[in-house]
């Protein structure tokens, strides 16, 4: 069976699951979970080096030959911070594929969409392949595509909430409105959430908390891998239409007359 690929800019990935690297108990657990998840793209944050602590780096646990890094601008609240964070990430050798995220509200961690659009525009012009985290807003996603983003990444629900897709209709409308890949970023809680999103035909899912904060992150990583794969296969296979009444699945001919 010929598998399909997630295409972002000029890159292609077999896995449609992108995973975060935060909130794990150790770097060893991070390494194992991302390996089991089958993800090829992993997102990392960019932060100050702690001067007086041991300087073991997460990069010692994620093989750059095996994974593509997706540095993110998590924690940025302004265009300037987001743009500079991406430029620092590139300078640090993390590449030019970036997840742009400009937070607009501390409590909900909802993005500042205007700032996200402006930062994305600047970064595309600076040569980055930009994947913006945004709300599930059709008009915004169209604008993000227009400024040259390689995908749009609407949230399913607030970051870390595990609520699943709150508004599947908006996600569907976004899928129709843009030609770039639609990647669900944030809010997925369970494998069924992931499957459901993939069955809708979204191109990929980015998640962190749902795996890292599960009771058994390694098992959940595997569950999410299978959920994303089966959801995608289900989408490609094409579901049956929903019907109100029953349709027998056994032949109506040759019934035994007793």
């Amino acid at each position, binding site marked *: 069976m010929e598998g399909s690929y997630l295409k972002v800019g000029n890159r292609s990935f077999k896995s449609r699951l992108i995973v975060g690297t935060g909130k794990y108990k150790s770097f060893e657990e991070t390494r194992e979970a991302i390996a089991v998840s089958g993800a090829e793209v992993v997102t990392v944050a960019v932060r100050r080096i702690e001067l007086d602590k041991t*300087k073991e780096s997460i990069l010692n646990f994620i093989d750059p030959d095996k994974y593509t890094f997706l540095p993110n601008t998590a924690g940025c609240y302004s265009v300037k911070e987001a743009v500079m964070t991406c430029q620092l990430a590139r300078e640090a050798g993390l590449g030019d594929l970036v997840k742009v995220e400009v937070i607009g509200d501390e409590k909900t961690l909802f993005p500042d969409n205007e700032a996200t659009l402006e930062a994305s525009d600047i970064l595309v012009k600076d040569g980055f392949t930009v994947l913006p985290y945004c709300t599930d807003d059709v008009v915004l996603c169209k604008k993000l595509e227009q400024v040259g983003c390689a995908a749009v990444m609407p949230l399913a629900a607030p970051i*870390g909430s595990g609520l699943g897709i709150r508004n599947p209709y908006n996600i569907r409308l976004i899928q129709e409105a843009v030609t770039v890949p639609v990647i669900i970023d944030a809010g997925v809680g369970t494998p069924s959430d992931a499957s459901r999103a993939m069955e809708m035909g979204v191109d990929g899912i980015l998640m962190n908390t749902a795996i890292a904060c599960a009771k058994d992150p390694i098992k959940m990583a595997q569950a999410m891998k299978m959920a994303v794969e089966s959801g995608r296969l289900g989408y490609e296979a094409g579901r049956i239409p929903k019907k109100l009444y029953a349709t027998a699945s056994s032949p109506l001919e040759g019934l035994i007359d007793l």
Partner: protein
Amino acid sequence: MKLTINGKEKEIATSQNLIELLKELDISESHIAIALNSEIVPRTQFATTSIKDGDTIEIVHAVGGGSG
């Protein structure tokens, strides 16, 4: 000389440029990036970028993270 490195004041003994500073701080050159007074310094210029008293320096690297 006194520098502000990653938000903390730090007395630096001998370093004259960014390469020497990294050595003095025991930070490996690979996988980090530096902003000097809010300007990003390309890594090829670490050795030729001199530092002076009062400079503000940010040294960053990748850490585990997802969103938010």
